[in-house]
Protein backbone atom coordinates (compact mmCIF):
# COMPACT_ATOMS: atom_id res chain seq x y z
CA UNK A 1 0.00 0.00 0.00
CA UNK A 2 1.31 3.45 -0.93
CA UNK A 3 2.13 5.66 2.00
CA UNK A 4 -0.14 8.69 2.40
CA UNK A 5 2.16 11.65 1.90
CA UNK A 6 1.68 14.67 4.11
CA UNK A 7 2.58 18.32 3.58
CA UNK A 8 2.33 21.44 5.67
CA UNK A 9 1.44 24.65 3.86
CA UNK A 10 2.35 28.17 4.97
CA UNK A 11 -1.03 29.89 5.01
CA UNK A 12 -0.87 33.69 5.02
CA UNK A 13 -4.56 34.20 4.34
CA UNK A 14 -3.94 35.51 0.81
CA UNK A 15 -4.78 33.97 -2.53
CA UNK A 16 -1.39 32.51 -3.48
CA UNK A 17 -0.99 30.21 -0.50
CA UNK A 18 -4.62 29.18 -0.90
CA UNK A 19 -4.03 28.17 -4.53
CA UNK A 20 -0.70 26.47 -3.84
CA UNK A 21 -2.32 24.38 -1.11
CA UNK A 22 -5.24 23.45 -3.29
CA UNK A 23 -2.94 22.44 -6.16
CA UNK A 24 -1.22 19.89 -3.92
CA UNK A 25 -4.44 18.69 -2.28
CA UNK A 26 -5.77 17.98 -5.76
CA UNK A 27 -2.98 15.43 -6.12
CA UNK A 28 -4.14 13.43 -3.13
CA UNK A 29 -1.62 14.71 -0.60
CA UNK A 30 -2.83 15.26 2.99
CA UNK A 31 -2.21 18.94 3.72
CA UNK A 32 -2.41 20.91 6.97
CA UNK A 33 -1.85 24.63 7.26
CA UNK A 34 0.53 26.57 9.45
CA UNK A 35 0.45 30.29 10.19
CA UNK A 36 3.10 32.19 12.10
CA UNK A 37 2.13 35.13 14.29
CA UNK A 38 5.01 37.61 14.52
CA UNK A 39 3.07 40.45 16.17
CA UNK A 40 3.35 42.58 13.03
CA UNK A 41 0.44 41.02 11.14
CA UNK A 42 -1.90 43.68 9.81
CA UNK A 43 -5.16 41.90 10.43
CA UNK A 44 -6.45 41.02 13.85
CA UNK A 45 -5.14 43.59 16.27
CA UNK A 46 -5.83 46.73 14.30
CA UNK A 47 -9.32 45.67 13.38
CA UNK A 48 -10.05 45.00 17.01
CA UNK A 49 -8.79 48.38 18.14
CA UNK A 50 -10.24 51.02 15.85
CA UNK A 51 -13.91 51.75 16.16
CA UNK A 52 -14.21 52.83 12.53
CA UNK A 53 -13.16 49.33 11.47
CA UNK A 54 -15.81 47.64 13.57
CA UNK A 55 -18.44 48.00 10.82
CA UNK A 56 -16.34 45.81 8.53
CA UNK A 57 -16.90 42.08 8.77
CA UNK A 58 -14.09 40.74 10.94
CA UNK A 59 -12.40 37.54 10.03
CA UNK A 60 -8.97 36.05 10.34
CA UNK A 61 -8.08 35.34 6.74
CA UNK A 62 -5.78 32.41 7.46
CA UNK A 63 -8.54 30.66 9.43
CA UNK A 64 -11.00 31.50 6.70
CA UNK A 65 -8.71 30.08 3.99
CA UNK A 66 -8.17 26.89 5.99
CA UNK A 67 -11.91 26.49 6.38
CA UNK A 68 -12.49 27.00 2.64
CA UNK A 69 -9.86 24.37 1.90
CA UNK A 70 -11.13 22.01 4.60
CA UNK A 71 -7.75 21.67 6.28
CA UNK A 72 -6.50 22.01 9.84
CA UNK A 73 -4.60 25.19 10.69
CA UNK A 74 -1.87 25.46 13.30
CA UNK A 75 -1.25 29.05 14.44
CA UNK A 76 2.17 29.43 15.99
CA UNK A 77 3.25 32.29 18.27
CA UNK A 78 6.77 33.26 17.11
CA UNK A 79 6.82 36.72 18.69
CA UNK A 80 9.94 36.10 20.81
CA UNK A 81 11.95 34.24 18.18
CA UNK A 82 11.03 36.78 15.52
CA UNK A 83 12.81 39.56 17.40
CA UNK A 84 16.19 38.33 16.22
CA UNK A 85 14.94 38.23 12.61
CA UNK A 86 13.82 41.84 12.77
CA UNK A 87 16.66 43.22 14.82
CA UNK A 88 19.54 41.43 13.06
CA UNK A 89 18.46 40.55 9.52
CA UNK A 90 21.33 38.82 7.75
CA UNK A 91 20.01 39.93 4.36
CA UNK A 92 18.99 43.43 5.44
CA UNK A 93 15.75 45.33 5.14
CA UNK A 94 13.52 46.14 2.20
CA UNK A 95 12.15 49.61 1.48
CA UNK A 96 11.19 50.00 5.15
CA UNK A 97 11.92 47.81 8.18
CA UNK A 98 10.71 44.69 6.37
CA UNK A 99 13.30 41.91 6.57
CA UNK A 100 11.39 39.91 3.94
CA UNK A 101 14.09 37.45 2.93
CA UNK A 102 15.16 36.66 6.50
CA UNK A 103 11.49 36.44 7.45
CA UNK A 104 10.76 33.85 4.78
CA UNK A 105 13.88 31.86 5.68
CA UNK A 106 12.77 31.92 9.33
CA UNK A 107 9.23 30.78 8.57
CA UNK A 108 10.30 27.95 6.28
CA UNK A 109 12.86 26.93 8.92
CA UNK A 110 10.07 26.80 11.53
CA UNK A 111 7.94 24.78 9.13
CA UNK A 112 10.87 22.41 8.56
CA UNK A 113 11.13 21.85 12.33
CA UNK A 114 7.38 21.29 12.42
CA UNK A 115 7.39 18.60 9.70
CA UNK A 116 10.21 16.79 11.47
CA UNK A 117 8.35 16.83 14.78
CA UNK A 118 5.05 15.77 13.19
CA UNK A 119 6.29 13.25 10.63
CA UNK A 120 5.22 15.21 7.56
CA UNK A 121 7.03 14.91 4.23
CA UNK A 122 7.35 18.35 2.72
CA UNK A 123 6.51 22.08 2.86
CA UNK A 124 4.34 24.14 0.52
CA UNK A 125 4.50 27.89 0.01
CA UNK A 126 2.56 30.17 -2.33
CA UNK A 127 5.70 31.92 -3.57
CA UNK A 128 5.88 33.02 -7.20
CA UNK A 129 9.15 33.96 -8.91
CA UNK A 130 9.40 37.70 -9.47
CA UNK A 131 6.35 38.59 -7.45
CA UNK A 132 8.15 40.32 -4.57
CA UNK A 133 11.26 42.44 -4.95
CA UNK A 134 13.19 40.87 -2.07
CA UNK A 135 12.07 37.37 -1.11
CA UNK A 136 10.52 36.10 -4.33
CA UNK A 137 13.26 36.50 -6.91
CA UNK A 138 14.91 33.76 -8.94
CA UNK A 139 18.19 34.34 -7.11
CA UNK A 140 16.72 34.54 -3.58
CA UNK A 141 14.31 31.60 -3.72
CA UNK A 142 17.17 29.03 -3.55
CA UNK A 143 18.55 30.99 -0.58
CA UNK A 144 15.31 30.35 1.32
CA UNK A 145 15.40 26.63 0.57
CA UNK A 146 19.06 26.37 1.56
CA UNK A 147 19.24 28.59 4.64
CA UNK A 148 16.01 27.24 6.12
CA UNK A 149 17.34 23.71 5.93
CA UNK A 150 14.24 22.61 4.01
CA UNK A 151 16.27 22.23 0.79
CA UNK A 152 14.47 19.84 -1.60
CA UNK A 153 11.51 19.46 0.74
CA UNK A 154 10.30 22.95 -0.12
CA UNK A 155 7.75 22.93 -2.95
CA UNK A 156 6.38 26.08 -4.59
CA UNK A 157 3.49 24.67 -6.64
CA UNK A 158 2.62 27.95 -8.39
CA UNK A 159 6.05 28.31 -10.01
CA UNK A 160 7.48 24.80 -9.64
CA UNK A 161 8.01 24.39 -13.37
CA UNK A 162 10.35 27.39 -13.34
CA UNK A 163 12.50 25.85 -10.61
CA UNK A 164 14.64 22.71 -10.28
CA UNK A 165 12.78 19.52 -9.34
CA UNK A 166 12.18 19.07 -5.62
CA UNK A 167 11.99 15.85 -3.63
CA UNK A 168 8.17 15.54 -3.79
CA UNK A 169 8.40 15.76 -7.58
CA UNK A 170 11.38 13.41 -7.91
CA UNK A 171 9.75 10.82 -5.68
CA UNK A 172 6.41 11.08 -7.47
CA UNK A 173 4.53 12.29 -4.38
CA UNK A 174 3.26 15.03 -6.69
CA UNK A 175 3.17 15.18 -10.46
CA UNK A 176 5.31 18.09 -11.68
CA UNK A 177 3.25 18.30 -14.87
CA UNK A 178 0.20 19.27 -12.83
CA UNK A 179 2.02 22.13 -11.12
CA UNK A 180 2.38 25.67 -12.52
CA UNK A 181 4.87 28.06 -14.11
CA UNK A 182 3.64 31.43 -12.86
CA UNK A 183 6.11 34.30 -12.74
CA UNK A 184 6.17 38.05 -12.30
CA UNK A 185 3.86 40.51 -10.65
CA UNK A 186 0.79 39.88 -12.78
CA UNK A 187 -2.13 38.38 -10.87
CA UNK A 188 -3.99 37.12 -13.93
CA UNK A 189 -2.82 33.47 -13.75
CA UNK A 190 -3.76 33.33 -10.05
CA UNK A 191 -7.18 34.79 -10.74
CA UNK A 192 -7.77 32.29 -13.54
CA UNK A 193 -6.74 29.42 -11.28
CA UNK A 194 -8.98 30.73 -8.50
CA UNK A 195 -11.86 30.67 -10.94
CA UNK A 196 -10.99 27.12 -11.98
CA UNK A 197 -11.08 26.02 -8.33
CA UNK A 198 -14.30 27.94 -7.71
CA UNK A 199 -12.77 30.46 -5.28
CA UNK A 200 -14.77 33.64 -5.65
CA UNK A 201 -13.98 35.31 -2.33
CA UNK A 202 -10.40 35.80 -1.25
CA UNK A 203 -8.29 38.43 0.49
CA UNK A 204 -6.31 40.81 -1.68
CA UNK A 205 -4.15 42.71 0.77
CA UNK A 206 -2.78 45.95 -0.64
CA UNK A 207 0.88 46.37 0.27
CA UNK A 208 1.23 43.02 1.95
CA UNK A 209 0.02 41.74 5.29
CA UNK A 210 2.88 42.97 7.47
CA UNK A 211 3.14 46.31 9.27
CA UNK A 212 6.89 46.34 8.68
CA UNK A 213 6.32 47.15 5.00
CA UNK A 214 4.53 50.33 6.09
CA UNK A 215 6.67 53.48 6.07
CA UNK A 216 4.82 55.24 8.86
CA UNK A 217 4.94 52.18 11.12
CA UNK A 218 8.64 51.64 10.41
CA UNK A 219 9.38 55.29 11.25
CA UNK A 220 7.71 54.80 14.63
CA UNK A 221 9.74 51.70 15.32
CA UNK A 222 12.99 53.48 14.40
CA UNK A 223 11.99 56.35 16.71
CA UNK A 224 11.36 53.87 19.54
CA UNK A 225 14.76 52.26 19.10
CA UNK A 226 16.49 55.64 18.83
CA UNK A 227 14.85 56.90 22.02
CA UNK A 228 15.78 53.74 23.92
CA UNK A 229 19.29 53.66 22.52
CA UNK A 230 18.92 50.01 21.59
CA UNK A 231 17.00 47.81 19.15
CA UNK A 232 14.59 46.10 21.52
CA UNK A 233 10.83 45.72 21.72
CA UNK A 234 8.05 43.85 23.48
CA UNK A 235 4.63 42.87 22.13
CA UNK A 236 3.03 45.84 23.89
CA UNK A 237 5.39 48.17 22.00
CA UNK A 238 4.44 46.55 18.72
CA UNK A 239 0.76 47.02 19.48
CA UNK A 240 1.07 50.59 20.71
CA UNK A 241 2.88 51.60 17.53
CA UNK A 242 -0.30 50.64 15.66
CA UNK A 243 -2.48 52.92 17.76
CA UNK A 244 -2.96 56.66 18.08
CA UNK A 245 -1.13 59.79 17.04
CA UNK A 246 2.51 59.66 18.16
CA UNK A 247 4.26 62.92 19.09
CA UNK A 248 7.77 63.30 20.43
CA UNK A 249 8.13 66.88 21.71
CA UNK A 250 11.46 66.09 23.37
CA UNK A 251 13.96 63.28 22.77
CA UNK A 252 13.23 61.86 26.22
CA UNK A 253 9.44 61.59 26.04
CA UNK A 254 6.73 60.60 23.59
CA UNK A 255 2.97 61.07 23.69
CA UNK A 256 0.47 58.55 22.28
CA UNK A 257 -2.80 60.37 21.68
CA UNK A 258 -5.99 58.39 20.98
CA UNK A 259 -7.69 59.48 17.76
CA UNK A 260 -11.10 57.97 18.37
CA UNK A 261 -13.20 56.05 20.87
CA UNK A 262 -11.89 52.59 19.96
CA UNK A 263 -8.29 53.72 20.46
CA UNK A 264 -9.26 55.49 23.69
CA UNK A 265 -10.71 52.22 25.02
CA UNK A 266 -7.66 50.27 23.93
CA UNK A 267 -5.23 52.70 25.60
CA UNK A 268 -7.21 52.44 28.83
CA UNK A 269 -5.60 49.02 29.23
CA UNK A 270 -2.21 50.71 29.63
CA UNK A 271 -3.23 53.28 32.27
CA UNK A 272 -1.40 51.47 35.01
CA UNK A 273 1.83 51.14 33.05
CA UNK A 274 2.23 54.67 31.66
CA UNK A 275 1.78 58.20 32.92
CA UNK A 276 -1.49 59.44 31.40
CA UNK A 277 -3.13 62.78 30.66
CA UNK A 278 -6.78 63.60 30.03
CA UNK A 279 -8.73 66.83 29.83
CA UNK A 280 -11.20 67.45 32.65
CA UNK A 281 -12.94 70.64 31.57
CA UNK A 282 -13.60 69.47 28.00
CA UNK A 283 -14.02 66.10 26.28
CA UNK A 284 -10.72 64.87 24.95
CA UNK A 285 -8.52 61.88 24.24
CA UNK A 286 -6.63 59.65 26.60
CA UNK A 287 -2.91 60.33 26.24
CA UNK A 288 -0.15 57.93 27.27
CA UNK A 289 3.26 59.39 28.00
CA UNK A 290 6.35 57.25 27.51
CA UNK A 291 9.41 58.71 29.17
CA UNK A 292 10.47 60.78 32.16
CA UNK A 293 9.05 64.31 32.46
CA UNK A 294 10.37 67.38 34.22
CA UNK A 295 7.91 70.03 35.52
CA UNK A 296 8.46 71.97 32.32
CA UNK A 297 7.87 68.86 30.17
CA UNK A 298 4.64 68.08 32.06
CA UNK A 299 3.35 71.55 31.36
CA UNK A 300 4.19 71.20 27.66
CA UNK A 301 2.50 67.78 27.53
CA UNK A 302 -0.60 69.26 29.18
CA UNK A 303 -0.77 72.02 26.57
CA UNK A 304 -0.47 69.42 23.78
CA UNK A 305 -3.14 67.24 25.39
CA UNK A 306 -5.43 70.29 25.53
CA UNK A 307 -4.69 70.98 21.86
CA UNK A 308 -6.17 67.60 20.87
CA UNK A 309 -9.27 68.04 23.04
CA UNK A 310 -12.54 69.74 22.19
CA UNK A 311 -11.26 72.71 24.20
CA UNK A 312 -8.58 73.50 21.63
CA UNK A 313 -10.04 76.99 21.04
CA UNK A 314 -10.63 77.70 24.75
CA UNK A 315 -8.60 80.18 26.77
CA UNK A 316 -7.97 77.62 29.49
CA UNK A 317 -8.30 73.86 29.68
CA UNK A 318 -8.00 71.75 32.82
CA UNK A 319 -5.76 68.73 32.31
CA UNK A 320 -5.30 65.85 34.74
CA UNK A 321 -2.08 63.85 34.88
CA UNK A 322 -2.07 60.45 36.56
CA UNK A 323 0.83 58.24 37.46
CA UNK A 324 0.63 55.21 39.73
CA UNK A 325 -2.43 56.58 41.53
CA UNK A 326 -1.00 60.07 42.00
CA UNK A 327 -2.92 62.90 40.40
CA UNK A 328 -1.80 66.34 39.32
CA UNK A 329 -3.90 69.08 37.70
CA UNK A 330 -2.85 71.73 35.20
CA UNK A 331 -4.73 74.76 33.95
CA UNK A 332 -3.28 75.53 30.52
CA UNK A 333 -3.90 77.37 27.28
CA UNK A 334 -3.86 74.82 24.45
CA UNK A 335 -1.01 75.07 21.98
CA UNK A 336 -1.91 76.45 18.58
CA UNK A 337 -1.51 74.08 15.67
CA UNK A 338 1.34 76.28 14.45
CA UNK A 339 3.12 75.69 17.77
CA UNK A 340 3.34 71.94 17.11
CA UNK A 341 6.25 71.48 14.68
CA UNK A 342 5.96 68.76 12.05
CA UNK A 343 9.12 67.18 13.43
CA UNK A 344 7.27 66.25 16.62
CA UNK A 345 5.01 63.90 14.66
CA UNK A 346 6.62 60.48 14.60
Amino acid at each position, binding site marked *: MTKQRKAVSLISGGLDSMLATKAVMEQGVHVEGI*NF*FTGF*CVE*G*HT*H*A*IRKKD*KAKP*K*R*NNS*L*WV*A*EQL*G*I*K*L*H*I*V*DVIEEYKNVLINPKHGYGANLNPCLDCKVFMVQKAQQWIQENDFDFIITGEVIGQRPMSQRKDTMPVIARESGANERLLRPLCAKNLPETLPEKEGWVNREELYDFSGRTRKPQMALAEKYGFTDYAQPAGGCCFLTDKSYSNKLVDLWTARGKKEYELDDV*MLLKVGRHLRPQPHFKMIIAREEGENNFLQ*GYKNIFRTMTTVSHPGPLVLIDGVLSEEDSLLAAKITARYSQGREAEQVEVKMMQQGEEKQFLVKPLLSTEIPKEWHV
Partner: protein
Amino acid sequence: MNKQFLDARRLLCPMPVIRVQDKIKTMIPGGQLEVVCTDPGVMQDIPAWCRINGHQILSASSDVGEFTINIIVGD
Protein backbone atom coordinates in the same frame (compact mmCIF):
# COMPACT_ATOMS: atom_id res chain seq x y z
CA MET B 1 -16.90 16.28 33.14
CA ASN B 2 -13.40 17.68 33.41
CA LYS B 3 -13.83 21.42 32.83
CA GLN B 4 -10.91 23.79 32.50
CA PHE B 5 -10.80 27.57 32.35
CA LEU B 6 -8.70 29.96 30.31
CA ASP B 7 -8.39 33.70 30.86
CA ALA B 8 -7.64 35.37 27.51
CA ARG B 9 -8.80 38.84 28.50
CA ARG B 10 -6.85 41.84 27.13
CA LEU B 11 -5.38 39.66 24.39
CA LEU B 12 -6.14 40.58 20.79
CA CYS B 13 -6.69 38.06 18.01
CA PRO B 14 -5.05 35.81 17.09
CA MET B 15 -3.52 35.46 20.57
CA PRO B 16 -6.72 34.12 22.20
CA VAL B 17 -6.93 31.49 19.44
CA ILE B 18 -3.31 30.52 20.04
CA ARG B 19 -3.94 30.24 23.80
CA VAL B 20 -7.00 28.04 23.17
CA GLN B 21 -5.04 25.90 20.73
CA ASP B 22 -2.17 25.42 23.19
CA LYS B 23 -4.55 24.66 26.08
CA ILE B 24 -6.53 22.11 24.10
CA LYS B 25 -3.29 20.29 23.21
CA THR B 26 -2.97 19.45 26.92
CA MET B 27 -6.57 18.20 27.25
CA ILE B 28 -8.23 14.88 26.47
CA PRO B 29 -11.09 14.36 23.98
CA GLY B 30 -14.45 15.11 25.57
CA GLY B 31 -12.97 17.63 27.99
CA GLN B 32 -14.55 21.05 28.30
CA LEU B 33 -12.77 24.39 28.08
CA GLU B 34 -14.29 27.70 29.05
CA VAL B 35 -12.41 30.71 27.70
CA VAL B 36 -13.11 34.34 28.60
CA CYS B 37 -11.93 37.08 26.24
CA THR B 38 -12.33 40.81 25.67
CA ASP B 39 -11.59 41.02 21.92
CA PRO B 40 -14.92 40.65 20.08
CA GLY B 41 -13.02 39.05 17.18
CA VAL B 42 -12.94 35.81 19.15
CA MET B 43 -16.62 35.28 18.43
CA GLN B 44 -15.60 34.60 14.82
CA ASP B 45 -12.09 33.28 15.18
CA ILE B 46 -12.41 30.71 17.97
CA PRO B 47 -15.47 28.99 16.41
CA ALA B 48 -13.68 29.00 13.01
CA TRP B 49 -10.58 27.45 14.56
CA CYS B 50 -12.73 24.86 16.35
CA ARG B 51 -14.62 23.94 13.18
CA ILE B 52 -11.46 23.26 11.18
CA ASN B 53 -9.77 21.39 13.99
CA GLY B 54 -12.70 19.17 14.98
CA HIS B 55 -13.77 20.74 18.28
CA GLN B 56 -17.32 21.62 19.20
CA ILE B 57 -18.66 24.96 20.42
CA LEU B 58 -21.07 24.33 23.28
CA SER B 59 -21.97 27.97 23.87
CA ALA B 60 -20.80 31.48 23.09
CA SER B 61 -22.10 34.53 24.92
CA SER B 62 -21.19 38.13 25.63
CA ASP B 63 -21.72 40.27 28.71
CA VAL B 64 -20.39 43.76 29.46
CA GLY B 65 -17.44 43.64 27.10
CA GLU B 66 -16.51 40.05 27.93
CA PHE B 67 -17.00 37.08 25.64
CA THR B 68 -17.29 33.56 27.05
CA ILE B 69 -16.96 30.51 24.84
CA ASN B 70 -17.36 26.89 25.95
CA ILE B 71 -15.62 24.26 23.86
CA ILE B 72 -15.82 20.46 23.89
CA VAL B 73 -12.48 18.99 22.84
CA GLY B 74 -12.73 16.72 19.80
CA ASP B 75 -10.78 13.56 19.00
